Structure formats: structure tokens, C-alpha cells
């Protein structure tokens, strides 16, 4: 930052960091203190007659404050809400002054570029996206953690090479890139080299470099619901598309997960997602529909299974599950009956076996987790006949 400031003629710098990252804040303070001690910050740096001070500003726990205009408002001590651009930060930023705002990762590349030269840096990466990127591997993957890789590395290399593959011999299903508002990429696209353009083509983003790997046990509708819940919660509320649009999309997704999806829900989701993406004010709203759009694009059949068959293929959505006890495997240990929060598991008369009364079962899965003999069977059979009064009415209308 000091180098950048020297080049730009700036005398004041801020580092914005979330309060949640306590360790990072602590280390940052130590580093800044040391830099002052060495004379790399403060007055007359390295006898060059150049002054530069760095201040740390702590965020108050808002995802949207990663958006640059919201971040600057937060640094100013105001409510973290994005502003339309123009004016861009370089025209009018912090307290109305021209401001250069960059990610820590960007600043970190400056030192090696100066030391080794631009051609060296440009030799890494792809034709359009140069250099390296720090990726954060998480989810159903053997080696979770942070890895710096050149742009152009394929997703397969990342997940099965660096990441060490999927644990417990499960099958890979999808990877979500770029954080909560990134898209979900299925197996058939694992061999694309990771760069901004290629990810965008697949409906995802580079974003934070986050990689959440999902295996066959992940329900893609549930994944979309989960991330929409996050975006809805983190929307600052300034513009209606993001504030209300994410909430409405969440309602529809919740409905589908609960087995109350309606035939036109996919159309409604697509309309809303396109609108929220198009007309939201900032990056949060513009990318929030990505998980929905990509799951609809690559896993549409799962949506259909939820809506039409009332079935969750990955056996995740609680309301669509059915629990049964395999009478052969059951050893009669009663741990399931003791784990059941609604006492709906009973002993079979005269035998050392247990059974579940389906009518009162709340599908919580406690018995499934508790059983040590894999005797509790979790299925999502779907509904073969109309069960809700609403469906009956619908059917009646069709008949008449």
C-alpha cells in the first residue's frame, strides 16, 4: 500500500477488515506497528520525504460491505449501503476525495511484480487472466484450506489434485465458486480452465475464490435455498429488487423444499432471478440469483422431482423424506426410540424390533443418525396420489 500510495501521491490509507476475523485483525495491527517501527510507514518513509499512514477500520458484520461503495461508507462510519456509480471511487470516494480501493490480494501481487518484473508475472495464468489466485477449498473435499494456484488451472485439478478428491468414496456432484452468490458448476464442466471469462460463461463468478464442493448427498434445490437465505439476510435493503426479490425467491425455494412447489414456480423463479440480476443496484443483488440460475440450468430435473413428484433425490429436504426401520437389520437396541423427539418409534408387539409411526413422524432424522446398525432407512419416495386438499381441488378442476 505504501508503494501504491507513493506512486499515487496519497498520504492516507485504510485497511477494512471484518470484526469477525479477530486473529487477522490482531496480526494486522502487529504488522502495521512493525512497519512504523521500521520506518516503512509514517513520516518521511525511507528518507524520501513521503508520509503515509495506515489505519485499520473494523467492519460491523455485513457481507454487503465488501462492495466498494458500501465499504467506503462503512469506513466513513456511516451505514454500509452501496451508492450508484458514477461517481466512481477514483472520482469521489472516501469523504468525497478521489480514492483508490483494492483487495488485499491485489496489493499482495505488487511486491513480486516489482521484484521479478511484469513479463514474469504475465507468464503465469491464461491469455486473458494473468497471475495467480488464492482459492479456498471447502465442503465435501479431503484437503480443505487455502491454495494459491495459477489462473487456468482446471476445476478437476483443483478438486481432485490439490483438494485430494471427495471423502468417503462419494460421488462428486457440483462445485460452487466465488462465495455465496456464485454459481454451481456440475461435473461435465470440470475440465474448464478457471478464469473470469470461463466462469462467467458457466453462470458463475470468480468472486472471493471460494470453492464449495458438494457430493451426491447434496440436494441442489436445498443448496439454492441455503444461499438465497444468506443473500436475503445480507441484502442491505436499499433497492427493492434485491430486498424483496431475494425474499420472494427464498419463499418459492422454501415452498419447493417443503413439497409445496407449484408447477409455475420454476417460471416465477426464472423471471425473478433475471429481474434481480438485471436491475439490482450493486454486485450483491446482481449476483444473488446465480445459485438459483445455475442449479436451474444444470439440475433442473431435481427441481422437477421436488415439484411434480414431491421427491428429493438427494434425500435432504425433510418434508419429502420417509423413514422406515428395516425389520431384519433392527437389533432392538431402542436407541432410535430414545433419540426420537416426538416419541413416534415404538416396539413391535411381542418382538425385539422397533417401527416408526409415519403419521406422527416429523422427518427430523434423529433416528437415522442414532442407529448404529443402518437399520433406519431414509427414502424420498415421492407422492403417487394427491394428498393435499389443494391438489385435490386442482385435480377436480382438471376433470371438470
Amino acid at each position: 500500500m505504501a508503494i501504491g500510495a507513493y506512486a499515487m501521491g496519497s498520504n492516507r490509507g485504510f485497511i477494512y477488515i471484518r470484526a469477525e476475523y479477530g486473529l487477522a485483525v490482531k496480526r494486522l495491527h502487529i504488522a502495521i506497528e512493525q512497519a512504523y517501527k521500521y520506518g516503512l510507514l509514517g513520516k518521511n518513509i525511507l528518507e524520501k520525504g513521503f508520509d503515509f499512514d495506515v489505519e485499520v477500520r473494523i467492519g460491523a458484520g455485513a457481507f454487503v460491505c465488501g462492495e466498494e461503495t458500501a465499504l467506503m461508507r462503512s469506513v466513513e462510519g456511516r451505514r454500509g449501503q452501496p451508492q450508484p456509480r458514477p461517481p466512481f471511487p477514483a472520482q469521489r470516494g472516501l469523504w468525497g476525495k478521489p480514492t483508490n480501493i483494492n483487495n488485499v490480494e491485489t496489493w499482495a501481487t505488487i511486491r513480486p511484480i516489482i521484484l521479478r518484473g511484469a513479463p514474469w508475472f504475465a507468464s503465469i495464468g491464461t491469455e486473458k487472466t494473468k497471475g495467480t489466485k488464492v482459492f479456498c477449498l471447502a465442503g465435501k473435499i479431503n484437503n480443505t484450506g487455502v491454495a494459491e494456484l495459477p489462473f487456468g488451472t482446471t476445476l478437476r485439478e483443483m478438486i481432485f489434485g490439490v483438494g485430494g478428491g471427495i471423502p468417503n468414496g462419494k460421488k462428486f456432484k457440483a462445485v460452487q465458486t466465488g462465495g455465496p452468490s456464485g454459481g454451481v458448476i456440475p461435473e461435465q464442466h470440470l475440465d474448464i480452465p478457471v478464469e473470469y471469462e470461463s466462469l462467467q460463461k458457466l453462470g458463475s463468478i470468480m468472486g472471493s475464490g471460494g470453492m464449495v464442493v458438494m457430493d451426491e448427498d447434496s440436494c441442489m434445490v436445498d443448496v439454492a435455498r441455503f444461499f438465497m437465505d444468506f443473500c436475503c439476510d445480507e441484502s442491505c435493503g436499499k433497492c427493492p429488487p434485491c430486498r424483496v426479490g431475494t425474499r420472494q425467491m427464498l419463499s418459492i425455494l422454501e415452498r419447493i423444499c417443503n413439497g409445496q412447489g407449484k408447477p409455475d414456480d420454476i417460471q416465477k423463479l426464472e423471471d425473478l432471478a433475471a429481474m434481480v440480476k438485471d436491475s439490482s443496484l450493486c454486485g450483491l443483488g446482481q449476483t444473488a440469483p446465480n445459485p438459483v440460475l445455475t442449479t436451474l440450468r444444470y439440475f433442473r430435473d431435481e427441481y422437477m422431482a421436488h415439484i411434480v413428484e414431491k421427491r428429493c433425490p438427494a434425500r435432504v429436504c425433510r418434508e419429502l423424506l420417509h423413514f422406515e426401520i428395516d425389520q431384519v437389520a433392527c437389533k432392538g437396541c431402542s436407541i432410535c426410540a430414545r433419540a426420537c423427539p416426538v416419541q413416534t418409534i415404538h416396539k413391535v408387539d411381542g418382538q425385539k424390533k422397533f417401527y416408526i409411526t409415519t403419521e406422527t413422524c416429523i422427518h427430523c432424522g434423529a433416528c437415522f443418525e442414532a442407529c448404529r446398525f443402518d437399520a433406519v432407512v431414509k427414502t424420498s419416495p415421492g407422492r403417487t396420489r394427491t394428498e393435499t386438499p389443494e391438489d385435490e381441488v386442482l385435480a377436480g378442476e382438471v376433470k371438470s
Partner: protein
Amino acid sequence: MIAGKEISLTIDGKPCKGALGQTILQVAGDNGIEIPTLCYLKNLSPWGGCRMCIVEVQGSPKVVPACSTPATDGSTVITNSERLQGLRRLTLELLFSERNHFCPICPMNKGDCDLQQQAYGFGIDSIRYPYLYPALLVDVSGKYFGLDHNRCILCTRCVRTCDEIEGVHTLDIGNRGVKNQIVVDLNVMFGASTTCTSCGACVAACPTGALFDKSAAFHGPLSRCQQVRTTCTECPVGCGLVVYTKDNRIVDVFGDAESTVSRGHLCRRGRYETWVEPRPRILRPMVRRDGHLVPTSWGDAVHTVKTLISASNHGQNAMLVSPRVTNETMRTLQKIGLRFDHIGMFVADKESALCTSPEFSTDAMKRLDDADGMILLGAQPSREQGVVAAKIRVAVRKRGVKLVILNSRRSDLDAYADISAPIVTLERKFWNRVGEVLGNVKRPVLIYGAAAMTAVGVTILDRLTKVLTSQCNGGEMLAPIQLPTSTNSLALAAGGVEPVEDISTWLGVQPVNFLYVVASDEPDGGARLLKEPHVRAFLEQIDCVVVQASYESALTDVARVVLPSAIWCEKNGSVTNFEGRALPLRAALAPSGEAREDNIVLETVFA
């Protein structure tokens, strides 16, 4: 980049001219192209939040808000493509689904609601998404207006108005996302707010029924009311009013955006007090018979007054006039002046000194906008001239203007001041500090009120001049602004009416045995004349007092004859504000009962 340079662009295929620095919305508006908006309000900073004014600019894949995007030379803008209309329509649908926007039970139904108008414009008769309907608070704890969160679309027009026009920043947004809500102060009820000035600007800014005037709610849509533009006569600022009336009663009062003085802003007094506060009106002429005031006809009352005048000894007739009367009344007074031996106007405390050399402060409001330093001496704008106080607050908060308050009563402005000294010392240390604060100021302006015209005030002024001349390097002192408290006192004084501050002395100096008081529509009915007990005793003793007033008061108790006078919204004519502008008064209502305008009463009595 030269702001103001002419640029040309194409909007919806129409070649348009604009100036560099203008937004797309402004250029489109100037060229007769309408772009729908919700969160945009003229005179406020653009917010870019409602996403209604989104437009397509050629070369940019994303839509941009017209309200905040600068128009650029040679660009091509599309404002009404199918894509844009679809996005806007969905935005509206989402807004309608968010909270309770059931129109039939909203005070803004049928034409006063921007949201409803937009929905009509887009032909929305149903929405595709489920209603979220959170049960939110309806805060009617405020005195004059209520806040119904269920109707709020979070456009922040109220927040920005409160911050940028009134300058108090009482309102802001709390919580996040769909849980967003307007909060008052640190999330208290409106009635418990310590910063709200009840100026009502937020209500005027609200595009829906979220903020509503209690007195105006459910009295029918404003769009079906008669509108009359007139001038507020509560203080000498002379803000423009738009009075909405129906069936000869006031439905609501708003600021007149076209007023050159106030540009649509008002303070609590002009916005609400004049018509919301109950005040007992005098509706018929009354004459005292057997110790009681008895209603009578105009003819009888006028006859009684004439008899009283002819019975009184020559040289002992006096008249006291309220400084609120119109310029037309003043001219009538000049005509009939010969009939009276003494004519005075009863002004506020210490104000007579201001009136002895009446000076109008030309373009004072504009100069307040230009100043970068303000010195307030012996004035209380936040009590008396709320719109001036708002200007001062905004100047300090938005433009970093230096504010020094000297010898003024404590008020909320103290919190904004660099130096606030209700009691000024002559210590060198203090004046050095004043010098420091005003050191870099280039265009200071002195605002002084009645309390500056005392011995202490003159000493302070003397000291201040010395400090300013020695410390303000290269700055030019703007002409001082004289801020009287009585509405038309300067014009009346300029017209030769003697200001009277101390009634008892004034009555004592001359032998008076007939007193005619024109209290007009003084809110206290002129009762402040009787502040000193012996004035009342004296008036009871001469028993020959005629009171021409709009409201009942202690003064009417000592009157032999009471004549009903029209109030502010029933008057025609003009008043002259502290800038010297003659501002028109236009009657919005016919006078109540048998009340008549002051000058007509005077002409009838003294014909």
C-alpha cells in the same frame, strides 16, 4: 470537464440538448421525456435505490439509474424499452408484495400516492407474488403526524429531507434487507424524539401514506382540493404556502416549492400550528352590555365604536396595531391616522430598536447559502424563524460552515456551533478563540436579532468587528442580516408606525381615554399587551377599549366592543418579509362567521 458546457445526446431517438453535469433524468425532463421515479425528489441528493428510473445507455450492458448517472455528450439513451418496462413493473409488484399497500384504507388513496399512480401507469391490477405482510408498527405518538411502517417503501425521501433540508437527521434506516425500517433517533417513537422539530418536511416528501398529517388523514385526496398559494405570516421570513381547502375548511398546508424565499420548506409554526392548534375564534361583533359581551350586528358595533370615539376627548385617542397586519392595512392606517393622536404597534421584546432604523436584508436567504461562516447574535431562529435555523444547520453539517453563536438563548443550534456563548465575556482568550474559528472564513455573515440591540449587544458587535477585520484575511464581510421576530414590523416601521415595546410607559406618557387595538390574528389574541397587571387595571379603568381580533383572549375581557378579524388564510393583500420582498397573501377560505379583513373593518369603522 467544464460544468454547464452544452452537450447533445439522443434519448429515445429524440435529439436532446443538456448541460454537462446534468443527470440523464434532468436532461430527459428538460426535453419533455418522462422517466418514472419513486425515490427521486428535486433538491435532494440522488439515491438510486428504487430502480424505477433505470435506463439503457448504449454501450453498457447494465441498466443505470437516470437520477444519478451524468448525461454524457454523444450518448444514446433508451428510457422505455420492453425490457425496462418489464423490470419496472416487477419492481412495483415486489414493492406491493412487501408490505400492506391496500389502497382503500390509506389516507393517500385516490391520487396523493406516487406508488399508486405508478401502479396505475403500469396497469397493475394484481401481483404474481405472495404478500409478505409483516405486521409493523403504526407510530402515531407524534403530535402532528404519524408514521405507518406498513406503507413505507423505504425510498428514504424522508430520511434525506430530514438530513439535507431541515438538517436535523432525526430519521434514518435501521436493520438490514427485508427487515429495513425507518427509525426515529435511536429507534424511539416519534413522540419521544428529542431532535425532531416537527417541521413536517418528511411528510411532504413521502411518496406513499407512510408519513401522514394526522389532521389531514382521511379528509379526502388533496388532488380534489382547491389549492391556494399564499404566504406564511407567522414570522418575517415569509415562506410560501400552498393551502389545500375543501368545503371552506383547511385540509392541509404544505410549503410552496416555487417560493423564492423558502423553496418549499416550512417550520412547525407555518406548517401546523396555524391550523391544527385549536384557538377560540371570535365569529361575531360583540358589544358589552351590563358587564357582558353580547353578540350584535356589524352596524350596531360600528355605531357603538363611533359613539365612543366622538365621546372621547380630543387628543386622547390611541391605537395599537399588531405587527402582523398586511401592507394594505398599513395604508388604511396611514389614511385614518389623523383621527388618532397616537398610533403604535406592539412589537416583541427589544424589537423596537430594530424597528427604529428598519433595514431590509436583501437576498438574505441566498446569502445564507453562500456564506462560509455565520455569526448569530441575539437571535433565536430555531424558536422564531425555523426555516432560517434549518438553513444554518444544513450549512454547518453539509458545507462545514463555521458557526459562532453569541448572546442568544440556548437552543438546539448550540450543538452545531463551533462556539456557543449565551453569555459573552470580554476576556481576550475568548475573543482569540472566536478569531481562530473565523480565521479562514472568506464570506462571514452576521445574523442579528432583537437582543443584539442592547448595550451588551453593541459591545459584542464592536468586539466582533475588530476580530473580523484583524483575523479574517482577505475575506469579504457579507452585509449583516437583520432578523426581527414580528411578521411585518419592518414594513410597518418603514411606513411610519411607531414601535411600542413597553405598553405601560407608552400609555403613561400620553393621556389616553380611548384605545383601539388591532390585534388581528395574533395567536394569543393580543393578550401579551396585558402582561403587566397595571396595564389591565388602567384599561379597565378607562373602560373604553375596542378590540379588533381573531381569537378570544384576556384582552377581549376588558373590551367594550369586539370586532372579528380575519385570520391568515382568510386575508388578501401583501406582507413584506425581512428581505424586503412584498409577498402576496391570498385568501384560501372565506372569513369565518362575520369576520372581516383588518383593513375592511378599519375602513368601515372610520368611513
